[in-house]
């Protein structure tokens, strides 16, 4: 395999919840890697930490205490560095019985160093598209102005006229009709789908090495969703851009990803090639992935008007992380042979097939890992 363009190792990002008077371990030891030209899809429910993983990688976590530690290794042509290099000395975490008691963080020191590491990376090397395009666009300036600004800031194109031509070129690439007219439109005059296209144009116009797409279709109408997914698929073949795609919509992940990481309770519970992880009859699979796939109503279930296979219980809140497997309380596949392990010890990610890893005691790979 190629050396990864982005390698995240043991990333931890915590927040403090005032309502619950406790620390939430949003991302709690996540490791992933994205090879050049590849799309890695992260799927999981809300609170699983998938968006926070992406925001951490882009250095966009602002709430306290935020990123605590780990490595975010970026290896592109223009930048090769660990985006969290030397930051651990600004943080100290006190933990007792799986509960975070206190986090001491020298926020100013951290921020100064982190921003220095992010220099020339955010927006330039790592571009992002968000769930709500309208809120990510500046309402007071035209689509064209915003595109030109991005192009002149992040690429070698500096001349005004040339930048405008580039901008129109990008509007064409994202299939916006009459791009010359749209160039002068403000975001409010455009539909949600159109704003998302403009957002994608803006992200790509910086010619980044990595695109992070955080729920790019959520909140759009079904008909528009399928158009945006089409567009992303086309751009993927045309530009070959490396993408980190985050979505709770399994169909979107399935359509666009080469590899998949399934997240639950702040950790990756399964990762592997998309075809393998989502194969309808897969024998080896994390019980959570299986349950997640089963809870989407199948054509067969709808026809027979049968009950949906719900995952009982609630999503883990990651305040008090259990000693054993994070999914143990909701798991319906625990056997007597492994129960003791499941309840008492968090399973490691075990390689069940080349490139396919599952964090579950049911598989010998975890016991040998």
């Amino acid at each position, binding site marked *: 395999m190629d050396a990864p363009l982005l390698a995240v190792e043991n990333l931890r990002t915590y927040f403090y919840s005032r309502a619950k008077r406790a620390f939430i371990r949003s991302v709690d030891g996540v490791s992933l890697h994205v090879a050049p030209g590849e799309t890695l899809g992260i799927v999981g*429910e809300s609170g699983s930490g998938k968006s926070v993983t992406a925001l951490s990688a882009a250095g966009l976590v602002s709430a306290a205490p935020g990123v605590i530690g780990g490595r975010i290794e970026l290896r592109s042509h223009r930048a090769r560095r660990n985006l969290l290099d030397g930051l651990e000395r600004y943080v100290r975490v006190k933990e007792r019985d799986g509960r975070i008691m206190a986090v001491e963080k020298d926020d100013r020191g951290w921020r100064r160093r982190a921003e220095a590491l992010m220099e020339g990376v955010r927006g330039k090397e790592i571009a992002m598209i968000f769930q709500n395009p309208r809120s990510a666009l500046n309402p007071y300036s035209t689509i064209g102005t915003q595109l030109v600004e991005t192009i002149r800031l992040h690429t070698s194109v500096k001349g005004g006229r040339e930048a405008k031509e580039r901008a129109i070129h990008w509007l064409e690439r994202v299939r916006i009709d009459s791009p010359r007219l749209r160039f002068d439109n403000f975001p409010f005059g455009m539909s949600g*789908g159109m704003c998302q296209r403009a957002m994608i144009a803006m992200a790509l116009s910086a010619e980044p090495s990595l695109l992070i797409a955080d729920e790019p279709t959520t909140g759009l*109408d079904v008909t*528009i969703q399928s158009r945006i997914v089409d567009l992303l698929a086309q751009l993927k073949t045309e530009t070959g851009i490396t993408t980190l795609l985050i979505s709770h919509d399994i169909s979107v992940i399935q359509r666009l990803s080469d590899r998949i990481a399934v997240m639950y309770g702040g950790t990756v519970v399964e990762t592997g090639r998309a075809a393998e992880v989502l194969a309808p009859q897969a024998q080896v699979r994390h019980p959570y992935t299986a349950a997640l796939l089963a*809870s*989407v109503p199948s054509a067969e279930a709808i026809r027979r008007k049968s*009950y*949906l296979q*719900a995952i009982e219980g609630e999503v883990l809140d990651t305040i008090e992380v259990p000693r054993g497997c994070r999914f143990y309380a909701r798991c319906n596949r625990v056997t007597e042979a492994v129960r003791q392990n499941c309840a008492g010890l968090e399973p490691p990610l075990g390689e069940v097939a080349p490139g396919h890893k599952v964090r579950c005691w049911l598989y010998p790979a975890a016991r040998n890992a």
Partner: protein
Amino acid sequence: MSRTILDVTDLRKDYSQRRGLISMLTGQERVIPAVDGVSFYLRENETVGLVGESGCGKTTIGRTVLRLTDPSSGRIVFDGRDITRLSRAELRPLRREMQMIFQDLDAGLNPKMRVQAILREALTVYERPSDAEIARRIRELLEQVNLKDSKLANFPAELSGGEKRRVGIARVLAVRPRLIVADEPTSALDVSIQAQVVNLLRDLQKHLGLAYLFISHDLPVVELVSQKVAVMYLGRIVEMGLAESIAHQPRHPYTRILWSSLADKRSTEVREPRAWGVFDFEQPVSGCRFAPRCPLYQDKGRPAVCTDPASEPPLRDAGKGHVVACHFG
């Protein structure tokens, strides 16, 4: 045959929009028909699904049939009684029989009240039961929505999304309604929790004989829970029929597009996108309101009948209770 609980005829709801100073001075208003002549009925123990893109008027219908907003014209008959023009006071006793589950999980949950107090309040709105009776009913409600006793002491902020949804449903059930308008009841929830709530709503219907007007853009879920489905486009029902025929033998091109875009999202082949405009309330439509976006209209070589101002296609009977508003459907 169970009895009809809600009968809506030619319902209209216009929203007016002032366009700034000039129109304010001249008194000119633009009228946007959010719901433009909609008729349907709902029987006890039955679910009618309402689907369509955002802005098509789904939620407005839900709010109007419950008289949370006043209709501009049309007739709403609830359980044999015309409620279209009832005053607030006259409506009050009827309100308990028709309830709404809102999309927003926090709607109706006072953040400063514990779950116990929220349920207690709901139980005492219309009745003055004894404390023992209240305790018994709260236990019953918790059982119905499958919520643990320990949650009674919690504030809404301490609940997860699924738990908030359950408390919201328990609160609605407390007044023993017969009709529930469920407006996107699952869209704010996680996939695994959605399945729990869908199962719960179906269970409650079975045991309590509730009628649901189920508003959602989640097509598989709508198909699963509904007996009948109405497809809306720009304030009108363009097709209505049994859930399985809407999903598998749609006759209106818009219905076909809706369900096929669901399949498109899953397929892995890359297709060139079709020209696909965006609907616009503000553009006056002449003839069929879907024509500007209609692939059939293009394929048929833009027949004049589709844009003839004198003939917006009416809903006509296509057999087996299936109605469709298309010249060619």
